């Protein structure tokens, strides 16, 4: 099943490169992926839980390295996110004059990379699949971007390559920190076995699998590595410019899906294996995430262009996900995981709509826009929904997850005062909710409300190809927002299994 899920976009991308019609093939492939993902979700045995759809083919048996795929609830939700956003991104891709096929192939390669990373249960492939997705991102921004696309493309690529490099060092350090042998467990790249061994070791001896002192360094390196990929302050400056320059579908896929890889990795690896490291560095993470929320929040307020504003806002919202991860309890982590899903959908919808404005107003500067709600009622309303979703309005999944993050982060240290760092960070994060309302509503007002500034008959009409993906994204947000338990049913057991007890 998971093999097929990775296979479809890769095959379709190759077929497109070999001359198959770009749009049609990608549409078929992304639809097939979406349906298959839904089927996987439905056939996942929630009662049994754990990892399912396991398949494994050994590559280097001596190193215990194999092409191993498996999915638990967390992976499945991320796979669903990937499938939905890919589907929407392919649908919304405009017509290109040149090299259209290459464009679609790149999109599908990104999707394949993300799918592979989320479905891998082997450290090596987990890492390698993510790298696979980086190269097409570079091509997409460099070839089809707008503005200073060359600079942005180089910046994001080198920055993320550096981040990946740090991540690789972190992974090696983590690997070295794991004892080579314990009971029946032999050290290897199998993430499932690692997680099981960590739980068993804790249950048997009361001590974590990796000695407390040995957890400190790998966690720090992983935090920096993953943090760079997630645009954790101060490693964020690649994100806004890249998203501002990227063609719409690429921005959707990267901000919506690929960026979540780092968070996913942090949850998947650091929670079960490095709990003491996480505790040791909690102060640092809290500090950085508050900077993500407050500092970036203020920077976002000062933006005068819609695309840059959205880029910064997506950086800011990472702070909330980090807060959930830092909380290190079931409520906070579930909130973080749900927020990954919700943020991916909402930011994709925002970029999708913003992309429709670009042909008419390449700069997307607030000063030149205004009153578009009148001329483009559908896009105006949809942008409003997505904007409200992203600032955490009840009814959308973002609210439910932010609520969980707040409750989760406020929980630790039962002392009824504002003493603990967690509580201080929660207070800042709550203030961030006000900040995000300020910038988002200001932007919405500047672009869609007020009198029409630029009289033009050529404002795009929302065609089916634009409406459908936007509606799909918003509908998914609403469903998950009204019934968060439907998604949590998948997330909660997997996260409970990851958390050391």
């Amino acid at each position, binding site marked *: 099943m998971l093999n097929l899920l990775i296979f479809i976009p890769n095959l379709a991308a190759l077929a497109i490169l070999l001359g198959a019609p770009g749009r049609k093939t990608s549409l078929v492939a992304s639809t097939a992926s979406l349906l298959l993902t839904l089927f996987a979700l439905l056939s996942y045995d929630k009662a049994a839980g754990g990892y399912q759809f396991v398949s494994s083919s050994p590559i280097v048996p001596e190193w215990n390295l194999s092409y191993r795929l498996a999915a638990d609830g967390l992976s499945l939700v991320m796979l669903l996110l990937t499938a939905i956003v890919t589907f929407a991104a392919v649908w919304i891709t405009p017509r290109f004059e040149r090299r259209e096929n290459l464009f679609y192939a790149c999109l599908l390669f990104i999707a394949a990379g993300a799918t592979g990373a989320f479905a891998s249960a082997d450290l090596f492939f987990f890492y390698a699949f993510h790298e696979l997705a980086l190269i097409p991102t570079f091509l997409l921004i460099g070839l089809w971007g707008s503005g200073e696309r060359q600079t942005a493309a180089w*910046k994001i690529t*080198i*920055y993320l390559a550096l981040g990946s490099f740090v991540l690789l060092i972190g992974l090696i350090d983590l690997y070295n920190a794991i004892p080579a042998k314990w009971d029946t467990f032999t050290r290897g790249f199998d993430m499932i076995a690692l997680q099981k061994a960590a739980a068993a070791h804790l249950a048997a001896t009361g001590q974590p699998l990796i000695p407390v002192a040995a957890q400190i360094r790998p966690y720090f390196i992983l935090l920096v590595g993953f943090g760079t990929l997630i645009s954790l302050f*101060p490693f964020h*400056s*690649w994100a806004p410019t890249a998203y501002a320059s990227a063609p719409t579908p690429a921005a959707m896929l990267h901000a919506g899906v690929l960026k979540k890889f780092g968070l996913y990795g942090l949850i998947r690896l650091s929670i079960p294996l490095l709990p003491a490291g996480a505790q040791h560095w909690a102060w640092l993470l809290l500090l950085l995430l508050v900077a993500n929320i407050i*500092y*970036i929040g*203020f*920077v*976002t*307020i*000062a*933006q005068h262009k819609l695309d840059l504003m959205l880029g910064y806002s997506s950086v800011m919202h990472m702070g909330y996900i980090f807060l959930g991860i830092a909380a290190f*309890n*079931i*409520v906070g982590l*579930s909130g973080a995981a749900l927020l990954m899903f919700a943020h991916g959908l909402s930011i994709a919808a925002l970029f999708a709509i913003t992309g429709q404005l670009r042909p008419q107003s390449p700069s997307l500067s607030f000063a030149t826009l205004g*009153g578009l*709600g*009148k001329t483009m009622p559908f896009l105006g309303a949809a942008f409003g929904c997505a904007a*409200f979703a992203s600032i*955490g*309005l*009840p*009814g959308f999944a973002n*609210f*439910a997850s932010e*609520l*969980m993050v*707040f*409750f*989760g982060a*406020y*929980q630790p240290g*039962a002392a*009824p*005062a504002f003493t603990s760092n967690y509580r201080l960070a*929660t*207070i800042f994060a*709550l*203030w961030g*909710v*006000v900040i995000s*309302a*300020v910038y988002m*509503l*200001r932007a919405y*007002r500047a672009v*869609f*409300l*007020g*009198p*029409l500034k630029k009289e033009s008959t050529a404002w795009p009409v929302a065609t089916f190809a634009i409406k459908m993906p936007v509606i799909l994204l918003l509908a998914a947000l609403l469903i998950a927002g009204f019934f*968060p*338990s439907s998604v*949590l049913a998948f997330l*909660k057991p997997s996260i409970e299994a990851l958390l050391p007890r």
Partner: protein
Amino acid sequence: MDPHLPWFILLNPLVSAALIHLVLRRSSGTSATVSVLSACFGLLAAVGIWFSGQSGAPIEVPWLDFGPALRIPIGFIIDPLSRLMLLVVTGIGALIHIYSLIYMEHDEAKSRYFGNLSLFMFSMLGIVLANNFAMMFIFWELVGVSSYLLIGHWFTRDSAAAAANKAFITNRIGDFGFMLGILMVWSATGSVVFPEIAAKIGTLNLSADFLTAATLLVFCGAVGKSAQLPLHVWLPDAMEGPTPVSALIHAATMVAAGVYMLARVYFLVALSPDAQTVIAWIGIVTAVFAALMATQQDDIKRILAYSTLSQLGYMISAIGLAAPGAAMFHLFTHAFFKALLFLGAGAIIHALHHEQNIWHMGGLSSRMRVTFLTFTAGFLALIGCPFFSGFFSKDLILLAAWQHNTAIFALALFTAFLTAFYMTRLFVVVFLGKSRTDAAAHGHDGPIAMTGPLMILGLFSVIAGWPWIQNYALGEVSSHTLHLLHEGGGSVPVMILATLSFLAGTGGAYVLYSGKAKDPILIPLFKNKFYIDELYAALIAGTQDLFARILAWFDKWILDGIGVRGLSGGAWGAGFVLRFLQWGNLQAYSFLFGIGVVALIYFMVFAK
């Protein structure tokens, strides 16, 4: 009681809103019908709940369930308080829906209007029914957004868009405190459900400071939503919305949500005397300041808006004065007469082709009979004329102030005087005298769908305060407070003083304004709302925006410029320097290579 009834009340406006926004966007007539029908069904269901009494088992479904770690249900609380509020919200809501049929008849976005109105009903009823803090917060936010949408209904007007933003963001500031208060209460009690908190919080021996902090933070939510100082600035601007919206949301229901919430969590408020003092003072100061501002406004809706602020101040203050029953009583009567006044103002605005300046009106009493008569009823109720509803409820609040705090009582009395003054000013200028413009000379009453709600509300404005209605409607909600107040004594002097201040205000304003064509007094400080808006604008520009610009500059030039570009520049520079080593002479390379080999051999073989 049928457990489906609350579900029906809550979900029926949601279905209506969804239907209108998703399906009926283009057929405005059908949208209006759907919305009005849903509002009427809601009223019927609320009446049903009213008569069927207490609920047996709690009605609850899990929404977020993490076992002992966190449990947030969607649950309903059906007690006298919520039954009363249900009746008020659905009743006034239904009337205003009907009224809107005429008022918004020719609006080009009628569907959107009615869809958002239904969305508002959904959110407001959610607040009323919520049995826990988190659910209340959910609907609290939703009310904020439906208010945002309705204020910004005519979003192509820049002022409307600005007012909508201001309302939402100001409310969010209050919600920041509210959420923090919820978290504090939750961290102490481990629950967000009201009955559970109420049962537990008294047994925990929490420190007084903690309780005060938690209560005041929760109160922040009410400060935002009920527009108390210092977050009151959004309400007058919210008058940019259509007038029925002002009547429903910004006079009768949503802004009263803060009072309702405080009454709901009174078990918490009661634990902290310090917090109560703060609440009482904030309420009364708001009442005085808003009344002072109202005396110098020229826009009919703005006068009413400041009046709303002032009356809300009374209610909040009553909560702080340990008289939640009095607050709810005033909320109950105020909902009727203030909705009536707004709808009356709306009728005038409608008849005068969107003229809102009172100095462009005048002499309307003879041409708009129904509007005039009903408006008079609302006017008399608001200024506390004896035997009108407002008299009874305001009297209770004054009595509570008399018994607790003389200073607050003096301010409350002064507010009563000011209320009578500015309302008489409005009344005299708008209805009496000669018509000062052409439009005012030709205004006339609207059709029955417009005057009907006015008449019904007019009736209630008169009788809603009468003791037997009070006993019937409020019953348990106010009985405890009433009991305490009767024990305290002083009702006779309070009543006399209140009547005197009412007479003084009315008389003074009548003498000053009767027959005048323009305002004889000018107090810039009041007219410009104590320059608070300007102060805030300067504060926001001077702190937040400046700070934002500095940080953006820092991010762009220092962090990204010197940091990131510095690193990449460093790499480039190192490469530039190092390439001078490659001077391109093959033979020199091989010479160095030879030396290297010789050195290697030396170190490997001879230097052991």
